[in-house]
């Protein structure tokens, strides 16, 4: 599914990613943990094609295809989805219209027929119900006036509708109460299959109790310094990053 080899990236002159090696096989959920400023969000942005980061070296293959050569919209059509840590507000853009435009763009790229407003609303309402979101969230402007939790749920709604092959969740759990956290985890778990993988960036073990990862990686200073099974997350929760970082140094 995803093969990252020696990936380096900088913003301006400042190197952020200093050689990432990471493979996420089909059907697996990998967690990325690490202290603030270690490059976790940058990794998500670089994988989804944000152009203020410059890739200075390495390669990323997605289903065997060079991901770095693709525009953001082509990556989305190929099946990459980034759930933003701070979802962007789009004043003047109706949420339902936004979601339908995105879904139809991806359907078009796959050679599928576009959905009309009625067909779309039927699907969208089923998902909002499943995610315990009020119906009026479809009528409002994208993320405008949404609470922190509503914004995160709106990201999960987008993911549920766009059905990516690879979801990158950038601290989607931050600012969520326990009920919302379960809903988010359920949303991801519902997508889990042989053809779905996820990279879950988080600071907390809590999310991983509901969304159990196959592997946990610790990212520090732009490199993966340790990898392990789900037990690594529990260890980090108990003793912090200090030990891991010392070991790695």
């Amino acid at each position, binding site marked *: 599914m995803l093969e990252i080899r020696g990936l380096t990236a900088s913003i301006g002159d400042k190197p952020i990613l200093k050689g990432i090696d990471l493979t996420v096989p089909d059907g697996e959920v990998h967690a990325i943990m690490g202290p603030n400023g270690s490059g976790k969000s940058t990794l998500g942005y670089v994988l989804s094609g*944000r152009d203020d980061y410059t890739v200075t070296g390495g390669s990323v293959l997605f289903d065997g295809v060079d991901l770095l050569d693709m525009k953001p919209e082509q990556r989305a059509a190929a099946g990459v989805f980034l759930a933003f840590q701070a979802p962007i507000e*789009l*004043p*003047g853009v109706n949420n339902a219209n936004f979601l339908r435009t995105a879904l139809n763009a991806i359907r078009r790229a796959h050679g599928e027929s576009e959905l009309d407003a009625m067909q779309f609303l039927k699907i969208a309402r089923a998902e909002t119900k499943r995610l315990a979101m009020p119906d009026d969230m479809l009528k409002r402007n994208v993320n405008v006036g949404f609470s922190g939790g509503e914004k995160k749920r709106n990201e999960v709604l987008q993911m549920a509708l766009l059905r990516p092959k690879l979801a990158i969740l950038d601290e989607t759990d931050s600012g969520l109460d326990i009920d919302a956290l379960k809903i988010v985890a359920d949303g991801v778990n519902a997508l889990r299959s042989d053809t779905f993988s996820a990279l879950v960036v988080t600071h907390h073990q809590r999310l991983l109790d509901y969304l159990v990862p196959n592997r946990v990686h610790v990212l520090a200073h732009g490199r993966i310094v340790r990898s392990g099974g789900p037990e690594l997350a529990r260890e980090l929760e108990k003793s912090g990053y200090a030990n891991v970082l010392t070991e790695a140094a």
Partner: protein
Amino acid sequence: MSAIAQTGAAGFLACFDALKDALPGDPIVRQRAAASFRALGLPGGTSARRAEAWKYTSLRPVAETAFMTPVAHGLSIDLSASTATCSRFAATPDFGALPRPDRDPMVALNTMLAEDGAILHVPAETDAGLVRIESHGNGPTAFHPRHAIHLEAGATLIVLETATGNGSYLHNAVTEITIGAGAHLTHIRLQDESPDSFHFATIYADVAEGGTYDGFSLVLGARIARTEIHARLVGENGVAHMNGVQLLTGNQHADFSSVVRHDAPHGTSRQTVKNVLAGRSRGVFQGRIEVARHAQKTDGYQMNQALLISQDAEIDSKPELEIFADDVKCSHGATVGELDAEQLFYLRSRGVPDSEARAMLVRAFLTEALDLVTNEPIRDVLGQRIDAWWERQAA
């Protein structure tokens, strides 16, 4: 009547001298207007110096163009969806009480040479539906329509004005509007003139107690355009909305100038003018809110925003507040920017292609100004024009 080729203020005055005996209406009003026009001249027409009201807009290209006057121009008034009564200025010439030819050169020019126009009247407590006024200019002509819209107490009317044409012509309209107590006028203007034309529209609107003026202008066409609105809230609880969208490209210059005068307590004025500027175009916004000493509890809001989609485009913005009452709420602001890179990336990361994402963000930028247009068919027409404009830019 014979056609006369003319240039500059002197040309228009010569034309008036030749035609004055044949023009309809009070000759004294015309003579006075001619005297004012002689004194005021075309702003920037012969020298770079011009009045503060025309600070950002020079009419030198107008002064240098020869127009034929008079030529019957295409003015059609469609009353099929309205019960308003309509007469033509040519038949019942009335210059009205609000326009100020003594102050505004283009109003003086219009008063001097106006031949025709639509005069609409809606009796009290009547919903008179929708009137369409369509003008079609043909170069090289100058026409100066004189319109009036009068709503008695409790009346309702929607007016949709569309201006189109071919070639290099001058369209210089003056409109007087009176809105009676509790009456409501929705005044939608679609300016889609020829790219070689000159378009000036000066609108005076008086709003009585509890009356509403909802004005919206979509400015797409003309080489030089100016929309000038003078709204006055003369009765308590009056409401004036003066929104606009200007979409400019090439060497277009469009000026949106307005003055809203709160002359009675508890008035509300709202104005959102959005500019999307491509090519080497130039947008101008001048907006003044005046609050008289006795107009307490006034609520005024004014916002002008520009989206520059080219390095060479330019916006001049001059919002002004002039407040003599002490218990009012007035705010204004102006922003200039480009499309937001984060918003664009967010849309693209969801699979929306770059060009479609940009179109969505431009439409979103315009939404606040367009929201005033609640009539769905009219809003659809405006939306289609906006989309078509954007597609031409993106192509």
